[in-house]
């Protein structure tokens, strides 16, 4: 009997007017094998993953078909049987790592709690186990950081915490829903290697939901391509990637950005609505800078618990220019971004915007600048008010500007929704009714609605499939060209950064280790860390990936 047997899975949500989010999906997964599920944002990947653990039970969603996981008939199981399945035999890493941890407890305690549910371990042994797995997923100084609360962790650290939690219980099946969206490529590689290792050591089955074809290529045996709740194509990963049979798959593959592709020739984005971005005339480095940071610094906490998140960062952003920021998970990118739009008070340094010093302005004095400085938040879940429809959230900046009447606001918002690739008729829907990638796009729409001068995008496309990703980056580029927007583009995906940026800054441990034009940095990296980053970019070719993995292993062993 296979580890996972799914046949005829259908899922529909009550508000969705009869439409099925997942429609007749069937697949199997053997122990020790890995199945990648790739596909368009909103195609039902997460919904299917939830169904494996019976997580739709009691939510108002209707689930049909048969699901067997590790010998348990999920549809018919009692609550107690399900509980026994969850965590111990099949564990899940959720797509929204930032909101998936309890804000009130230390991360180590949360892992320990889960561990203790399924083992009879003592409190202390469980804590030790928590530190151990945190260490394995690459949290530095794991023993100390295990006592931190989630809000003290960076996005990537939280995501790794969730992976650690899944691993703690040594499950037979790991369902990982976009497990590396917040991770820089080096850490991502490390995590993927870890998963690979576990599969071979313990025979763990892996169901990897991802939009990143590169990641899939690196880590799975079989792949299942989904679109609109249906299977498009499935088969061994090498076959599907090298010889896609269906047009959708081909489209998907061709949209994958390449880290070696120069910006001047942006990846063609077939099927993408809206005009293909044409590079705007650049005047990088010249003219009056839009935003200028000098020696920005930010610390958290006092005494022994002090963390220097950003340590003397200086940078400039010009009108019409995109500054890419890449770097290690936890290196202070988000913190820096939040300071740039003044959601955080810098503890040191200065910040000039349009000639004015805004680094130390009070909340009230900042008000006039607010709409000009926007941010797309790393955590799409937390950045949307769960009690307000997404349309209303996007409309906020318009209303704040106070110039439009209701119908015009609505049409403007719908237009924006459409431009980020969302169904404008879902104006009145609430955030929890959206998929991860859809929520991320709502956040982008909101930032755009404000009519900003500068947008700090914190991982704006991490949850988007490649086609949607291309569509969104194209949109940003277009707006940039039209309006002369300044963009700060924080991302871990080096290829995307290369595609959109004029200049790149590489961050590590709160500092900028290297800064320069895209071509300089990507073409001739100076800093060893930058080199390491570039080497870790996942390859599309599974065979190449295996070779690379072996190389990394050797490197680590040495």
């Amino acid at each position, binding site marked *: 009997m296979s580890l996972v047997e799914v*046949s*005829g899975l*259908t899922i529909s949500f*009550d*508000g969705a*007017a*009869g439409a099925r989010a997942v429609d*007749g999906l069937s697949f199997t997964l053997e122990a020790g094998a890995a199945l990648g599920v790739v596909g368009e944002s909103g195609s039902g990947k997460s919904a299917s993953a939830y169904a494996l653990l019976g997580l*739709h*039970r*009691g*939510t*108002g*969603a*209707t*689930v*049909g*078909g*048969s699901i067997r996981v590790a010998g348990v008939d999920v*549809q*018919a*199981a*009692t*609550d*107690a049987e399900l509980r026994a399945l969850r965590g111990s035999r099949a564990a899940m890493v959720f797509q929204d790592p930032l909101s998936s941890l309890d804000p009130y407890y230390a991360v180590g305690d949360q892992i320990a709690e889960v561990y203790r549910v399924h083992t009879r371990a003592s409190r202390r042994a469980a804590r030790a186990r928590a530190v151990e797995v945190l260490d394995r997923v690459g949290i530095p100084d794991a023993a100390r950081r295990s006592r931190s609360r989630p*809000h003290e962790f960076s996005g990537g650290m939280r995501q790794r915490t969730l992976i650690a939690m899944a691993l703690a219980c040594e499950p037979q099946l790991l369902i990982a829903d976009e497990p590396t969206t917040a991770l820089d490529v080096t850490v991502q590689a490390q995590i993927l290697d870890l998963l690979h290792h576990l599969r071979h050591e313990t025979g763990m089955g892996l169901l990897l939901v991802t939009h990143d074809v590169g990641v899939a290529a690196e880590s799975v045996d079989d792949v299942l391509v989904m679109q609109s709740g249906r299977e498009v194509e499935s088969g061994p990963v090498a076959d599907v990637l090298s010889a896609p049979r269906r047009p959708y798959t081909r489209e998907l593959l061709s949209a994958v950005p390449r880290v070696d592709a120069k910006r001047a020739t942006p990846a063609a984005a077939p099927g993408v609505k809206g005009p293909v971005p044409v590079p705007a005339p650049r005047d990088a480095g010249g003219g009056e800078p839009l935003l200028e940071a000098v020696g920005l610094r930010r610390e958290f906490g006092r005494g022994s618990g002090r963390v220097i998140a950003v340590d003397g960062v200086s940078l400039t952003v010009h009108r019409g220019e995109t500054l890419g920021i890449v770097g290690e998970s936890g290196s202070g990118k988000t913190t820096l971004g*939040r300071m740039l*739009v003044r*959601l955080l008070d810098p503890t040191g340094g200065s910040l000039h915007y349009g000639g004015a010093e805004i680094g130390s302005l009070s*909340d009230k004095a900042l*008000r006039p600048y*607010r*709409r000009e*400085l*926007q*941010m797309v*938040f790393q*955590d799409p879940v*937390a*950045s*949307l*008010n*769960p*009690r*307000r*429809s997404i349309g*209303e*959230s996007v409309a*906020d*900046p318009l*209303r*704040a*500007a106070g110039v439009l009447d209701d119908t015009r606001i609505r049409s403007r918002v719908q237009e924006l929704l459409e431009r980020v690739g969302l169904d404008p008729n879902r104006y*009145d829907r*609430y955030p*929890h009714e959206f998929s991860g990638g859809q929520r991320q796009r709502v*956040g982008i729409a*909101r*930032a755009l609605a*404000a009519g900003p001068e500068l947008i700090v995008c914190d991982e704006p496309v991490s949850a988007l499939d490649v086609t949607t990703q291309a569509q969104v980056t194209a949109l940003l580029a277009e707006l940039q060209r039209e309006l002369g927007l300044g963009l700060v583009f924080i991302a871990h995906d080096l290829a995307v950064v290369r595609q959109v940026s004029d200049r790149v800054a590489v961050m590590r441990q709160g500092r900028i280790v290297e800064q320069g034009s895209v071509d300089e940095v990507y073409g001739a990296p100076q800093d060893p860390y930058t080199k390491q980053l570039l080497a870790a970019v996942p390859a599309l070719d599974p065979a190449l990936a295996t070779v690379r993995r072996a190389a990394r292993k050797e490197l680590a062993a040495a």
Partner: protein
Amino acid sequence: MAEALLVKEAGVAAAAPASGASSFRRRLRARRSAVVAAVVVALLVLVALAAPLLAGIEGQDPTTYHANLVDSATGGVPLGSFGGISAEHWLGVEPLTGRDLFARVVYGARVSLGVALAATLLQVIIGVVVGLAAGLGNRFVDQALSRVTDIVVALPVMVIALGALAVVPADFPRPVLIAVIVGLVGWSGISKIVRARTLALKSLDHVAAARLSGWGGLRIARRELLPALAAPVITYAVLLFPGNIVVEAALSFLGVGIKPPTPSWGQMLSDADTWYQAAPTYLLIPALLIFITVLALTVLGEGVRNALDPRVASRLRIGTGRKKEAGG
């Protein structure tokens, strides 16, 4: 096979919502108990409004003494069983005076519900404003407001009532005066809860996003915080309600309350407290009415609360649509 296994897990009606407001109504309607509660509340209000009519149907009024209906020799217990319940006196009569309880209860609803409602509203408004300002304001504002709250908590109602008694002219409408006094002394609970929740909420990203929209503090409070505060505020406000009904009686002792012979539930309850053995219905009737009122308001509040939270509507019953262990 697949179709046969189709399990409808929850009973939330499936219908395409047209707008936010109508989906709110849909969620509200979905809770049948909330509808029942709303009907009960409406009935209570109706009873209050139609008091003269109802008493008229019964053929009684709330002030007439019936010396012949109480047993004077044994302390004025109503004659007959269950506190003198009869065809003429539907809920029996009051001990000592023999006044008709049904008439007193329906007339009492006017004062009690009216005053309690006004007072509760005042408490909620003051409490929410102060709590929000403290939670959102800077350190100084927070400190100042929190200390003012402390002062209000520490001041006995009686002292405030005394001051009011001296300042307010004698012909000032009593119900308004009571509502104001009760409102002025009772808002601290709400303000504390609102402040606590605000402090937790304001660190969330969606509040930060709203700040980036260029909203001022007021707008942020209204759009981002108030909806999330609605649940605790409604829950607590419902609980303030019965307290406010009772405080009215306490104030009447100081001479600030409703003047007799106008009945009110609070006064009936406080007059009845020694009669729990000799004439239990006398105590039970106002107590039960207050209980029904809170219960209805609680359930209604719960319904409104759920309706306001789009997530709860679908997730409320997570883990409650449980399956029991199968037979074998």
